[in-house]
């Protein structure tokens, strides 16, 4: 029951990132996604790995919440993104629960949805905060994919993902300059 709920929470966070344009909405999206993935990692790899991911996600959340910007959820023209979130979620659920076999359905679902939706968000946006939030979520999903093999991959993938997620949220990219 908890596992299924955590998978849904991870999808919800990725959907918030896909649907949000404001920094607060993006920050909450990362936070929600981190909670879902961390709970799944807690069950598969143990408390230390889950704590590492949770800290990385928490650090990634702070700049968005402190920015003072709005949520920017579902602005005009975001219908295709909403369809992507629902359609992508259903497709991922079909693959994770029906096509594939064995335990860890929720982790499979979370990895596919978070990696897919954050990758799509990176492709479709030009704003640095959106891109960096997408990178953070993608890093969390990629580290969770390391735990799909059954055996625990050790703390390193989670540590690197936490550094990328936490570090990229605070990054201020240089603007493009003329040659």
């Amino acid at each position, binding site marked *: 029951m908890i596992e299924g709920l955590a998978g849904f929470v991870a999808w919800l966070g990725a959907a918030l990132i896909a649907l949000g344009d404001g920094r607060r909405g993006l920050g909450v999206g990362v936070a929600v996604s981190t909670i879902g993935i961390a709970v799944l990692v807690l069950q598969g790899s143990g408390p230390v790995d889950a704590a590492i991911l949770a800290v990385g996600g928490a650090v990634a959340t702070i700049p968005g919440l402190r920015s003072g910007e709005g949520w920017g959820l579902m602005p005009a023209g975001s219908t295709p993104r909403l369809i992507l979130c629902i359609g992508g979620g259903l497709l991922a659920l079909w693959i994770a629960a029906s096509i594939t076999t064995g335990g860890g359905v929720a982790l499979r679902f979370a990895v596919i949805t978070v990696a897919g939706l954050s990758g799509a968000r*990176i492709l479709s946006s030009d704003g640095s905060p959106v891109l960096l939030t997408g*990178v953070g979520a993608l890093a969390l*999903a*990629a580290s969770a994919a390391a735990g799909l093999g059954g055996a625990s991959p050790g703390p390193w993938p989670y540590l690197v993902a936490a550094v*990328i997620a936490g570090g*990229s949220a605070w990054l201020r990219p240089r603007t493009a300059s003329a*040659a």
Partner: protein
Amino acid sequence: MLPEAIEVLVMIAAVFAMALAFSPPAPRRHLLVKGGTGLLGTAAIAAVPTVDLAVLVLLGLAVLDAAAGGTRSFAIRLRLPALGVALLALALAFSRFAGPDTLERFAAVGLAAGLAAAVGVVPYLHPFDPEEGASSSPIVWIAFIGPVLATVLVWRAHGLLSADAGSAFGAMLIGLGLINMAWGSLGAWVTDNTVTAWRYSFVADWGLVLCGFGLTIADGQRAALLVVFTIVLGRLPLYLGSRQALREKTDTGRPVNLIVGAVLAGAAPSAGFAARVLLLRGATQLYWPLALVLLLGMLLWLPGSLRLGRSLGRPHGRQAIGIVIVVAINILAGLYPLPLFSAANL
């Protein structure tokens, strides 16, 4: 660490040292900081014990490279390497799912597509601005980070995929390789801008690399390693050496330009020639019509390479010394490539 990856890493470190030694003093500090960071990140991709960690390090490198600035926007710089990471992450996930064999084929598709997106070859060519500095341009991905990444991914893929999916992965690499050969060599020939022509020539060379990696026999792997050698220790330093002449729009047809053009085209006795012979031999062993297609594709290198050779202008001073060293290294590796193969256990 994979011996193949160590060897490619040593090549990259060598070309970085050459770039530092032969570059003008003014941009040297910038090159040292940016190139050193890139070299450390590339070494990390080769050194980490699992492919998951390599993919995460790649994501970190993509963010750092995009954030460092240039003439292209942050979004344009980040988009395709990040897409590559997303595809690779999904591919790794699919390779671990239990279920029908089709899932592993999806993993193979993701690995091939992710590799192409991260390196920046067709169908995921990174947007290119000819006016942008070499250390900020997509050349970093195609000639500096890409060779190590491809070596690590292709060799690690053998442990991830079943024999059936591995064959599909090889076939996809050959298909991508043929497309890149044609696209790159024709692009280097017909494009108006010479800097863009240089970029297309890298794409064409990557076509050979992908075909070599796709031929899952020793000759194919050896050919891929040699083409990587010609990219890193041939085409890249020659491209860097041509930047000054390109800025001054100097274009000459002296003997040195012809020699450089011949090396770039893979003429005997350069390393490119040995690589092409190995590739053709490997293709003949597997499926001879493939060798015919490869041979026809290799003929397309000549017009573009002669053009690129002329773009070096009239080399003098440090630039001339650097070009002589690069040509000599390539001829030496072409005449006696066995140490390269034995160092990589091939």
